[in-house]
């Protein structure tokens, strides 16, 4: 029963949040100066402009437009792109696989590399290994992705010729899985770099904190080997904050991979979001924002619920909030 109440309460919370986010986004993008590209063409006359506005439904009062959008969206219809006439859902569907591959790969690389590095760094604090890892983390966190991406393209794409310079697949022939991996290599590396830097540091500091705890001292006192102490007692506890960060990274990567996607001409959700916002393609902006919000909210709620299962201390308190 507890579980059901928990899930229902969280679902209700989520809907409320989505609703709020959609209103704010709608108002912001409509209030932003400028109009969809086809309306701001220099050659368009006043009356043609006015006519187009009416045909697109853009001259109605704002709240009517929102209600119209919300009503059709709730019934499953995200509408059509103003610029390409394609269905918003089709555009998003086309962009999802790209974002999925990129995010999953980048996140996996980040997790696989960072967590062991962070743990080693913490366990051997202030050693050479620690300094090297810390240095690399700062480097990875501060490097501008855009510049780094182009450097990689120049090195691996142009000079060495090992990897394709952009895109998700070779467009002149059918793709094999080797092609997919080769196309994925550089974008995933660039996207994961910042995440790796953050995760390494988080893991390190979290582990350091746990290593100070009394029960670790007790474990040492019991005569347990270092490895057992870390693996059995320290690891899981230190990973809690790290799981939170991973959960937060997912939506960031989905929506925020825009720079990587633009440089590598990767067809993903981030690029769709940026393009449509700049060109004021309102239905697409709303659709993409909704999608990213859902991903964010769902992953946050999932992490929360995961915590409740993992950490016995939280279970008894949890009454749905």
């Amino acid at each position, binding site marked *: 029963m507890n579980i059901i109440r928990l899930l229902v309460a969280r679902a209700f919370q989520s809907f409320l949040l989505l609703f709020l986010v959609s209103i704010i986004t709608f108002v912001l993008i409509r209030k932003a100066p*400028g109009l*969809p590209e086809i309306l701001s063409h220099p050659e*368009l006359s006043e009356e043609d402009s006015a006519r187009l506005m009416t045909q697109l439904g853009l001259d109605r009062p704002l709240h009517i437009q929102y209600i119209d959008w919300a009503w059709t969206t709730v019934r499953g219809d995200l509408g059509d792109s103003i610029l390409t006439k*394609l269905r918003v859902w089709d555009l998003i569907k*086309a962009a999802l696989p790209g974002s999925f591959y990129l995010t999953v790969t980048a996140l996996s690389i980040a997790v696989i590399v960072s967590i062991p590095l962070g743990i080693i760094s913490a366990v051997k604090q202030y050693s050479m290994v620690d300094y090297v890892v810390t240095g690399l983390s700062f480097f990875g966190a501060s490097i501008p992705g855009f510049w780094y991406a182009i450097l990689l393209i120049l090195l691996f794409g142009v000079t060495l010729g090992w990897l394709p310079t952009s895109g998700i697949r070779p*467009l002149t022939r059918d793709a094999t899985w080797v092609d997919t991996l080769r196309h994925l290599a550089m974008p995933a590396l660039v996207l994961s770099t910042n995440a790796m830097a953050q995760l390494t540091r988080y893991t390190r500091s979290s582990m350091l904190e746990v290593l100070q705890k009394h029960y670790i001292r007790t474990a040492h006192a019991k005569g347990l080997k270092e490895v057992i102490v870390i693996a059995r007692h320290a690891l899981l506890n230190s990973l809690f904050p790290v799981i939170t960060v991973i959960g937060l990274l997912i939506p960031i990567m989905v929506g925020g991979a825009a720079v990587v996607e633009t440089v590598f001409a990767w*067809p993903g959700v981030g690029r769709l979001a940026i393009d449509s916002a700049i060109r004021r393609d309102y239905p697409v902006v709303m659709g993409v924002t909704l999608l990213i919000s859902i991903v964010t909210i769902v992953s946050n709620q999932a992490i929360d619920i995961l915590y409740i299962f993992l950490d016995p201390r939280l279970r008894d308190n949890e009454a749905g909030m």
Partner: protein
Amino acid sequence: MNSRMLSLLSMIAVLGLLISACQPQIVEVVKEVPVDKIVEVEKQVVVEKVVEVEVGHVPDGPEGTLVWGLSADVGATSWDASKPEHWVYASMFNGLIRYSTETFEAEPELASSWESSSDGLTWTFHLRDDVYWHDGQKFTADDVKFSFDAIMNPDNPTGYHRGNFADVESIDVVDDVTLNINMLNVNYDFLPLLGDFMHIFPEHILDGVDFMNDKSFAQNPVGTGPFKFDSHLVNESYTVVANEAYFKGAPKLKRIVFKIIPDASVKVAQLRTGELDVVTDIGAPEAAAIQGVDDLVLLTPATIAYWHMFINNTTPYTEDKRIRQALHMAIDVEAIIASVMDGYGVRTAGPVGPPNGLRSNPDLQPYPYDPQGAIALFAEAGWEDTDGDGILDKDVDGDGTRDPWQDGIIIIPFMAAWADVGLVVQQYWNDIGLDVTLRHYDTAEGFGLVRADEYITYVGSRNPVPSSIDLSRYFGCDAPGNWFHYCNEEVDGFIAQAKQTADEDERRQLYYKAQEILLDDQPSLVMFNVVDLQVINKCVAGYNHDKSVRFNFLDTHLFSKEC
């Protein structure tokens, strides 16, 4: 200082850093510049380069794939033809006529010949009998009537093209291969307008379709052109394949893949690795990056497109034409071409510049760079620095106090170098005693402000239709494109007269007169004609660049990849 204070202070410091790192959207750049002249940069640039491409083997039938780089995805229809992405449609569709790429004369395309009635009110077109749509149906005059009626229909999103039909009353089908266009007014310069991306669409597919909302045609276009639609991966690529039944003969290429690559440096990288064969919208920095690369050729055709300082003619700061002339004279355009455009520009005296060939008035001279002359003209118009603050002033609002000449040049990143040009112009204008700042907006926002007349000047460009009618559509008193609110009835008079003149030479002289007046009136400060930068791989043959910039894919059926 205890640790609490210390951490509070460091938090504030970090916060301060963060806030300062987040720049607001609008950046006002006020520059103090010394009045001394900037060093003159001389640059030699070969503007028209004839490229000899070694012909390897010439294929008998369609062979090979050409990969073409685009910056953004293709839009829904070619009626929105304002950007390179939409020119993809030119490989799949034809118009009644097309332009000659050198002289802009009308050449036969779907129409094999035409004549006008003696009173000029009816144009009769004789259409080809051997044209088929990509789905096998025969092309007839019904398709032409359908397409033109659709463009003229105010319920369709064709505002951009509807202006081309301003003088047309109706279209009549005489028989399958004969069509009459009935004019409201005599307009002997009407013909070139039919080559301005006026593609003919299939009536048998589109009859009854709601153009505002239809998606199916955009997802599966059917035309008469040298290439047929094959596939479209949204935001990735657009592929067309050879139409072997093309009425001008089968193309020599089997397939063209238009790859969508937003980033300019990546385009260059791909040109170097051979992943891209052609890129036609490259900028000066990228052009420099490919100099000396063996496999690539840089083409630099001068086009009829031009850059100008767009001026709102109705503000008290700009309504006097002497002020506009002075603003022009205060700018060293040659230096801008040499520095900002890397030499890729042709100084021109007006909207119909030298690349237009015979249509350009050869006697007109562009304004020289003359800051002293500019200051004198300002003085004539009543602007002087009376209070010694270095800025010219005059009482414009009639309240008894003098107001400084101020302008916030609007910078819209529609084209990358507009910002650089704006920066330089700002310096020149500040040099002669004006108070000029820069206002940056994104494209949608910036154009919105211009439409609302909330600007004094902005850096802009124009890609005119290669017809002298273009002048009236832009500078005519009631023209829809006349965003600067310029009005000179003499100009309107010459153009109206020219339209009624059947003789080509006489017509041309009348347009010359209109250009003369425009030079004097300076509704906008036309600075230079754009030199288009195009990069092709040496293996690509038959490439025909085109001065109007709009029709780069005109001869797609002639392209071949020969290595």
